[in-house]
């Protein structure tokens, strides 16, 4: 999992977007397909991937998400909104 953007300070929206993009690419998604409206099903991101993504957001991005926060998330945009909210940069 990507270790870019690891920081003890709160990341801004640009840093979060870059981190999520890199993480999804690491999960096997083509970078060009990482768009806010893209459905995770279409990107072949499943529930196991989402757990790894949540772990990475918490560990490497320093944003205090829990695995179950990702329940019901269906698009890349919803992942970003969740991370913005948890990082307090809505």
């Amino acid at each position, binding site marked *: 999992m990507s270790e870019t953007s690891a920081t003890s300070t709160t990341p801004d929206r640009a840093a979060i977007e870059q981190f999520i993009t890199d993480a999804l690419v690491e999960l096997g998604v083509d970078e060009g397909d990482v768009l806010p409206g893209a459905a995770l099903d279409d990107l072949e991101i499943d529930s*196991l991937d989402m*757990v790894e993504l949540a772990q990475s957001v918490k560990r490497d991005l320093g944003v205090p998400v829990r695995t179950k926060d990702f329940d019901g998330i269906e698009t890349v945009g919803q992942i970003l909104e969740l991370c913005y909210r948890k990082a307090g940069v809505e």
Partner: protein
Amino acid sequence: MSDPQRGREVVVTGFGAVTPLGVGAGVLHERAVAGDTAPAGSHPAVRHADFTAGDHLPRNLVRRTDRFTQLALVAAEEALTRAGHRAGAPSPWLPERVACVIGCGLGGTASFEAQREVYEKEGAGFVSPLMIPQMMANAAAAHLSMRHGFRGESLCVASACSSGAQAVGTGMRLLASGAADAVVVGGAEASSSDLVAASFANAGALSPSGSSRPFDRDRDGFVIGEGAGILVLETAAGAARRGAEALGAVRGYAATSDAHHVTAPAPDGGPAARAVTLALREASVAPGELAYVNAHGTGTALNDRLECEALRQALGADVLAELPLSSGKGALGHLFGAAGAVEAVATLQALRHGVAPPTAGLRHPDPALGPLDLVRAARKLTTRARTGVLYGLSTSFGFGGHNAALVLAVEGRS
């Protein structure tokens, strides 16, 4: 092929391998025949395959799989392509009629070890949910089925270092029972960490000198290898119906158990000998008709002595004394659950090319092993059967007292 007995014969329509000698069954034979030896890796007694999964498999598959599964998928790709099953083209078989039997001795131990470290350093909340599906020993068979859409039975055969050979045998029985039209069989292993090496070393099986010297008077144990060997098997009638070339045949298989000790072979070699006798009987091949033996030959003091004793019992001292015999483990290391399958591929290649590879690392044959025809430089093989068929025997033995023997055959080239 009008003879119904011949129609039920199990033929090989594809084979592939990834080993410490390279990616492919071709390079395996060429380098083995040249007497090449894989270099030491992360540990003096480890031989790695020069293999980067990302060069062969998509990124999302690589991150979801342990290395043993990756090795199996790439070896299978080679075998299936040879058999005429190509990505994007119509499959030669009904998906429901293809079974996958892939042996593995230890499973994805590297994935387990990595997550154990995460657990200790970062806590339970950061352990990957993928660890279990990566490390489970059936992962190679499962991913093979998923990647190619094969919907017949798929399973892992786990019998330590005879897993690969017993997976081939299990596949043969699936074909014979009529449960499948094609079986993708073999073995895969990638367990070469310092932890695994330490346990084998403390069991007295690993070479402290970091050199594998099967049948040598100075042999002191095996070195650890990694890789996969895969074969595609069909009945002769089935292969003929779809116009597939039979690249060879697996004429006989048998397996027995020592019922003796978890690591030490039975002291009289009797059950191992019986596996060889039964495999020859199933193949209707007399010992004197064998052209080549690809021995288990681990290079431990005990294995080589008892294997030679078992072969002498099963084949007769006179036959064994003049039968070209070699072990691939000097060049490859011991591939554990993949060994029997890789060695079946190596045996097939030796028969197809009519050349036996030497035992790499063998310098001073151990006189205590009795009269043997040890292959020490590439040797041309000649048929010893009136039919002109070249027959080869491959033996495999595993911790737990598992003994397996395969009799392979290739029509003579005139």
